[in-house]
């Protein structure tokens, strides 16, 4: 763990992170109740310094600036001016670190294509850890204060704990200030029921991340890095596995983060609600990365006019929201295309009415939605837009389902004869996880404590015996 801190890979290891979270949680409860907020502040600062000490100044500066702007907004008549003054530096920092290189490259490519020559601007910067998350948290806070949804924060320590909360800094969720403030005002105490829920979430997250996501990453990387050297069947498998990997990686981390928040006494927003059991794309976006999609809905889509406008304007609002959603995930044409793809699908999907549907209809809808989402992930995972289209083309051209294709499609798992066992194991765990998700989705009453404990034991034992704990980074930490 110490070596990881020095070589800058500390935040990439699931085990190191869980260990760090557990130590902080234990020390948190040793600290007197009155000093817990200050303890959290120190823990957040230390945690960020351990993960990305070079970029700490950016987080600190933005925190102080948005705190001051929030305060001025509360006291000043020119509220709009304070809002703009608060948001612009945050957006500029986000744009500068994340998108400046991409825009320079795009301008260069366009100029070269027209034979005009190239510009000198090719600056590529290191992206500060969690900038996409804490920027959105700060912007949300400023807009809410502007709209007088709640009073501005007067204690900078409380605000700093909110912007830099150590469990949320790497991969979210994008917490809202009012929810966070409620937990702080309730006294930061141990809440047994919440802690129990948190423990369950940590185990589930560990299972999703270590047993499924990490286990799939090698296969997915091998096939996506050189799709031309693998049979079409392998490309289908890799697309399916990437969809599962991305969900288990991101939702797994979210579960761990929410779980530790619960252990610390914070009731945090749920980030995923079984998204692959969605009946259509609209349903999918109400279950996938909920903290981001609800943020975009509340602060962007509604600000643009939302549903209260003409059909054409509504469609435009949806497209803008999804294009920005795509860009939030990464600086690249493939991310922009992915956002547009979901935007179009969203516009085309009719609003579902509450109606009892047959099992066959539900099954078909779920499968169809999954396949549509899976094709979207190909753009998301590929290194460029061109590679993604080539990948999809190769999925269909020369498709074969014979003995050789099957063997050559399974082989990338380990490269030797253990590939069959590896493939079957991961399929088995995906199946068990699917059963768990289906049961959770259908559940109307709280689970019996014995069933709950059985699942917890299963998650923990599986994570220890079948978990892969290499230094594989959290996919969503890159956004």
């Amino acid at each position, binding site marked *: 763990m110490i070596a990881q801190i020095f070589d800058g890979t500390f935040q990439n290891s699931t085990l190191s992170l869980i260990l760090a979270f557990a130590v902080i949680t234990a020390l948190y409860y040793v600290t007197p109740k009155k000093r817990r907020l200050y303890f959290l502040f120190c823990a957040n600062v230390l945690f960020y310094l351990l993960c990305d000490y070079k970029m700490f100044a950016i987080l600190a500066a933005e925190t102080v600036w948005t705190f001051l702007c929030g305060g001025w907004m509360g006291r000043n008549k020119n509220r709009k001016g304070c809002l703009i003054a608060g948001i612009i530096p945050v957006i500029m920092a986000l744009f500068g670190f994340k998108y400046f290189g991409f825009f320079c490259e795009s301008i260069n490519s366009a100029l070269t294509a027209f034979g005009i020559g190239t510009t000198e601007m090719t600056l590529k910067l290191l992206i500060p850890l969690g900038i996409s998350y804490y920027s959105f948290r700060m912007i949300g806070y400023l807009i809410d204060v502007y709209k007088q949804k709640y009073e501005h924060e007067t204690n900078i320590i409380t605000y700093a704990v909110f912007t830099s909360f150590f469990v949320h800094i790497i991969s979210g969720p994008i917490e809202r200030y009012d929810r966070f403030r409620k937990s702080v005002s309730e006294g930061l105490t141990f809440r*047994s029921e919440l*802690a*129990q829920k948190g*423990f369950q979430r940590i*185990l589930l997250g560990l299972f999703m991340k270590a047993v499924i996501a990490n286990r799939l990453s090698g296969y997915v990387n091998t096939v996506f890095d050189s799709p031309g050297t693998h049979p079409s069947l392998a490309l289908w498998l890799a697309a399916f596995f990437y969809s599962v990997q991305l969900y288990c990686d991101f939702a797994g981390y979210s579960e761990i983060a929410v779980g530790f928040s619960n252990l610390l006494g914070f009731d945090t927003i749920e980030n995923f609600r079984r998204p692959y059991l969605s009946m259509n794309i609209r349903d999918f976006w109400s279950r996938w990365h909920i903290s981001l999609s609800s943020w975009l809905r509340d602060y962007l889509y509604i600000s643009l006019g939302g549903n209260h406008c003409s059909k054409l304007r509504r469609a435009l609002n949806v497209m803008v929201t999804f294009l920005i959603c795509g860009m939030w995930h990464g600086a690249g044409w493939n991310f922009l295309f992915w956002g547009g793809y979901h935007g179009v699908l969203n516009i085309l999907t009719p609003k579902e009415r509450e109606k009892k549907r047959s099992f066959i209809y539900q099954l078909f809808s779920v499968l169809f939605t999954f396949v549509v989402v899976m094709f979207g992930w190909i753009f998301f995972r590929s290194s460029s837009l061109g590679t993604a289209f080539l990948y999809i083309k190769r999925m269909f051209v020369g498709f074969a389902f014979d003995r050789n294709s099957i*063997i050559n499609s399974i082989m990338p798992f380990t490269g*030797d*004869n*253990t590939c*069959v*066992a*590896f493939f*079957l*194991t991961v399929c*088995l765990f995906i199946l068990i996880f699917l059963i768990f998700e289906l049961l959770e989705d259908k559940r109307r009453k709280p689970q019996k*404590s014995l069933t709950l*404990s059985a699942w*917890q*034991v299963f998650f*923990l*034992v599986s994570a*220890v*015996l*079948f*978990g892969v704990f290499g230094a594989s980074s959290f996919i969503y930490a890159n956004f």
Partner: protein
Amino acid sequence: MKRILYVVLASLVLICAFVPVKKFSLSHRMDNAEFGMSRLISDGEIDRLFIGSSIFRQGLDVNIIGANTSRSVYLLSYNGNQPCLEASELRYLIERGVNIKELYVDMYAYTLATEVSLSDDRLVLDTDFKYMAELYKMLSEKGKAGIKELFEMAVTANNELFLTWPLSYPLVNSRYRNGSSTAGNVGKTAEILNSLPIYTRFFNLNFEQVTSLFEIIQLCRENNIKLVFVEAPKYLKIVKNKTYRVIMKEYMTLLAAENVQMIVTDQTFSTYLEMKDTKLSLIKTYEFDSSNATYFQDLIHLSTAGREAFSAALSELIEK
């Protein structure tokens, strides 16, 4: 809090029970397998044993060698098998009463320079608890094994095989005969092979690996086993690689000093001829077209065509 404690305790009990259950339930299941050590121990005797890494597994068909003779042949291979591990495997077999008449060891230059490590978990699957303890001791003394490696060896190694045994084992076993892989592998083009990088992290001989090399020689002398080191063909890019040539030269010098027989490619032999102190009688050579890309699936592993060509050439030399 109480329930959290119960969950942790129940999980610990299950994990502790899992380790011996896995070990004992798998221990005799591989006695009739077409690969691994259990089969050798259960047979108790072998005329010609080939021991090596995936280079041997992919590139050597011992059944071609065995076809022209009534002697029994077997290939024992583990991924990245290195002298340190090969010595411990040989000792394990001898201690369990396996009578070996001739031993042919994979002579792959880079394994003599590599750091001591457990490169294949399957070694733990094939052996007993005592061997596992000795192996860990050796790895921690000669290599960098720590708690993580111990946990992997004792708890997580081969869990996938254990879990999927009824399905995966018959499938895997059907792809072996006497330890040799029967799976077909298509060769590549020169363009693809030349674009592949050579992964070498170590450029000097590793003291522990060299010591283990001498241990193999010593074990063979003590147990009256005829010992031959065999170099499997590598693609021209590797053969021409300076590090490979330097290590091979040192490898051959070490073996020659101990009067150990070698079988090498004609290209490697020409490198050896540049040296002053030559013991030509110890070395046999075979011709192999290392520039023929269809013989290789990557820079070091042979394709089916390459495997057949090499096995036929080696069979002829051994029978001579």
